[in-house]
Structure formats: structure tokens, C-alpha cells
């Protein structure tokens, strides 16, 4: 309990300071309420429209999580594939970059036609947006294996797959987890962009609220999206803690 408090309180302090400051700035009129709503209004909206917002959040969560799961597995798989030789990297890594720089909005019609309106487009969008960091971090982690340990495995005639799973992958884990940390937030963004196109969830709420000039609702939805991002982030931190605590410097106090 103490421990949890010890983690939440430091994170909450800047938030509280920020909120109070915003409320004050809006109240005295330095910031116009139709641009940035006062935090109190956002809270009111969260309470008043909670049913709509939380239903939307549930959908977005499902889309983002599915996209994230695909990115995590796909990104690691592609990273592993790319790590197998310099030639393969040269041949295919540029395409991963290519894939990353395609603006979803430009290929929206293709998404809709291939995946239809709704969840599948959302998942595809979350996936496309979030896979590259996993690939890049996995690859760079896999390429950084201590050459001495690689020699050890070579000596014992370890198969490629044994070398991968017993050496290179565990050694790359800290970096892969960093890739996942980045992918988590991007999957949420990707899901929301997908929802602009595919029409559901928080993306849809934001879209409607924007046309309605309901900044309070836009911010409430953004807040929920961020909370989802934070939850994913927290989950990966936990995973990182569990997996690395015993041996890696980054998880030792």
C-alpha cells in the first residue's frame, strides 16, 4: 500500500499543479474556454457522459490492445528475421521504414475496403502505426549481443534457434521492452486514427465532439485515451520489472 502510494503520489503532484493552474488560467480568462476547457468542465463531462465515454473507451481499448498484440508479435518476428543477416537487413529494413512513413489517412480507403468499417480497420491502423518501434528496437537489441557469448554458443554448435531463444533474445529483452513501451502509446493513437476512419470508440467521440465544438468532451476523450496509453505503459513496466529485476542494471535501484 505504502509502496503504491509512493509511486502514485510523485506522479500526481505535477498533475494537480497543472490542473489547478489551468483552471485558474481559464477562470481569469487568460485561456479561452472554447479553446481549452477548464479541468472542472472536463471532469463534469467525464461524470455526465461516462456511459458513452466508457463504452467508447472499451472499444478503443480492444482495438488498441489487439493492434498492440499484433505489433508486439509481428514486430519481434520481423526484427528476428531482419537480424539474420546484413543482406536481409539491406533488402528489407528500408521497407519497414517505408511502411512506417505511410500516413494512415492517405491509405484510409484501402483500409476500409480491405478491412471494412469497424474493429478490423481500427486494429489494422493501430498495428501499422505501432509496429516499427518494435522492429527497430528488437533488431538493434538482437544485433548488440556480446560477441563473447555468441562465441560460446557457436562453440557448442548451438542451432540458430537455440542461439536466438537462449542468448540473443534474452540479451535483447531490455531493448525490446523499450520498443514495446513506445508501441503501446502509438497503438492507442493508431486505434484512434483508425476510429476516425472506421467509426467507433473514442476516435468517433472526438470526431463528433470536434464538429460540435465540445472541447470539454474532446479533452475528456483524450484523457481516457491517455489513461489507456498509461495503463499499457504500466503493464510493460511491470513486465520489465519482473523479467529484468534479477539481472539487468535498468531495473535495479
Amino acid at each position, binding site marked *: 500500500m505504502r509502496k503504491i502510494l509512493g509511486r502514485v503520489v510523485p506522479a500526481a503532484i505535477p498533475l494537480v499543479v497543472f490542473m489547478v493552474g489551468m483552471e485558474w488560467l481559464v477562470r481569469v480568462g487568460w485561456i479561452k474556454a472554447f479553446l481549452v476547457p477548464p479541468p472542472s468542465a472536463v471532469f463534469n463531462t467525464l461524470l455526465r457522459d461516462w456511459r458513452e465515454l466508457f463504452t467508447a473507451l472499451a472499444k478503443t481499448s480492444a482495438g488498441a490492445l489487439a493492434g498492440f498484440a499484433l505489433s508486439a508479435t509481428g514486430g519481434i518476428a520481423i526484427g528476428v528475421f531482419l537480424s539474420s543477416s546484413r543482406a536481409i537487413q539491406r533488402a528489407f529494413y528500408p521497407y519497414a521504414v517505408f511502411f512506417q512513413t505511410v500516413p494512415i489517412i492517405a491509405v484510409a480507403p484501402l483500409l476500409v475496403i480491405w478491412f471494412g468499417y469497424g474493429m478490423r480497420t481500427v486494429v489494422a491502423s493501430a498495428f501499422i502505426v505501432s509496429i516499427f518501434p518494435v522492429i527497430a528496437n528488437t533488431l538493434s537489441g538482437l544485433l548488440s549481443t556480446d560477441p563473447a557469448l555468441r562465441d560460446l554458443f557457436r562453440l557448442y554448435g548451438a542451432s540458430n534457434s537455440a542461439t536466438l531463444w537462449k542468448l540473443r533474445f534474452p540479451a535483447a529483452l531490455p531493448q525490446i521492452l523499450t520498443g514495446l513501451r513506445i508501441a503501446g502509446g502509438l497503438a492507442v493513437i493508431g486505434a484512434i486514427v483508425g476510429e476516425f476512419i472506421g467509426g467507433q470508440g473514442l476516435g468517433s467521440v472526438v470526431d463528433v465532439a*470536434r464538429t460540435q*465544438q465540445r472541447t470539454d468532451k474532446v479533452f475528456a476523450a483524450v484523457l481516457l485515451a491517455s489513461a489507456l496509453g498509461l495503463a499499457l505503459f504500466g503493464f510493460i513496466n511491470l513486465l520489465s520489472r519482473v523479467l529484468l529485476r534479477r539481472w539487468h542494471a535498468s531495473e535495479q535501484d
Partner: protein
Amino acid sequence: SKSSSKIRLALNWKPDPEFGGFYAADFAKHGLDVELLPGGSGTPTVQMIGAGSAEFGIIQADELLLARARGNDVVALYAAFQNCPTAIMAHASRKLETIADLLKSGTLALESGLPFARMLKKKYGFDSVKIVPSPGGDLTTFLNDENFAQQCFLTAEPLQAKRKGVEVKVFPVSDIGYNPYTTVLAVSGELLRKNPELAKNMVTAVREGWRAYLDNPASANQKMHGLNPSMELASFAEIAEAQKPLLETSLLGKMTTERWSTLAAQLLELGDIPKAPPAAECFREL
């Protein structure tokens, strides 16, 4: 006076015939140094006017009512489109007679959150049609799926579809009684109070601009094509011709209390605004 400083007019889309009058206007003649700022998808012109990041902006009448309800003091000065060009188009092959027919099957893409969408829903219900977000001017899905209908601009997408060899049937939203002024020149209440002279000059210049454009769109079209080369020159001429009925040349920007009141009442009924503002607050005749 103020007229020497630069004045920004925020458009909510790229240079195209919809803004012909603004590009045809000779602002200098009225002592104005105006910079036209082309926008893109999601350019928030209403907020920009309110926040002072543009002195003037192009908005829709319903946007203005929503803005005022949210505490954003924006006032309309000149309504270019007397009739709302927003419409719904469907494949002609479906042989639909009315909007009601259209809502009985298939998919309809609507821009999320617009009042008329809720009006449609209230009137006919969306039970048997699938509502999806508008692809914003893109026709890919429409061309790919006969049972796909989408919100459009009377003067834009239907022409495009025809060019791609698809016959369409178009239902203007004014048919269901929703007809907000569109491509409205607006200004912040504050600026209007402080410098009514400036606003007046602006309106005069714009009115003359539209008159000139209606008479001869060619040179303004040329200018806009230069700024927006992705649109072909032929399209400019075609659209300029097609939009004439919507502009109602006889009125040239004039607005009436009655129409503003009707719109306010409609939005109030839809629950988009908490109370209807007096029409006089919303626009100013200069």
C-alpha cells in the same frame, strides 16, 4: 487607420471555386491588405477567429451557432452560399426516389456530428442503414460499392463520380428543411465592435469580388489553379458554373433574421445548443 496592417482571412479548404469571390476581390481598392490562408482537413476556422489568430474566417452558419453557445463570440457578415451545398449522393442505379428510400438499406457515410445527420436520424431513423464516417471527398469506397452512399458537396463529388463513369442521384439536405448559410464570412464580435469600418470595407470588397467572379470567373480560376494545381483548370470552370444556383446572385451575401432564427430553433430542438440566441446577435448587415 488599421487598414494598413495585414488582415488574415482563414479559409477552411484549399483555393477552389467555393472561394472564388474571395480570390476575385480587389481588397487593395478598399485599403485592405488581406492574406488568404488556405486550410485543410480539420482547419478550425471558428476557433481561429475567436482566438484572434485570423481576423476573418470562412465558416458555416450552424458552426457559428455552436460556437456562440460555447462562448466563442463570432458574428457572420456575408453568406456566399445562400443554399447549403451539402447533399447526399447515391448510385443512380439504385433507383432511389427520396432520402427516406436511401435510408432503408446499404451504407451511408456522414461527417460525424453534423446537426443535419441527427435531423435525418430523428426524422427517418438509422435502423436499416449502416452509418459510417465520411471519407472526406474520397470516392474510392463509393466507386467500389453500389450500395454505398455518401455525404457530398453538390458541386464537387457528383461531378467527380460522373467523370469516373458512375451515374449518381443527389439529395440536397435542404430537401429535408435543413439549409444553413454556407461559406460565411465571419469575424469576432470584439473586432467588429472595435473596428466596424474595417469589417464594412471587407464586406464591400468581398461582395464586389463575388460579383466579379460570377460575371467572369476565368482570371480568379486561373489564380486559384496556380495555388492549387492539383485541381484541374477545367474543373474550376465546371464547378463555378454549377454552383451559381446556390449563390443566388440576386442576394449576394445578404442574410435574414428569419433564416437564422429557423436554424437556431432547429439546433435547439436537436439539443446541440442549450438556448437559441437572438438572430440579431448572429449576423450583422453592413
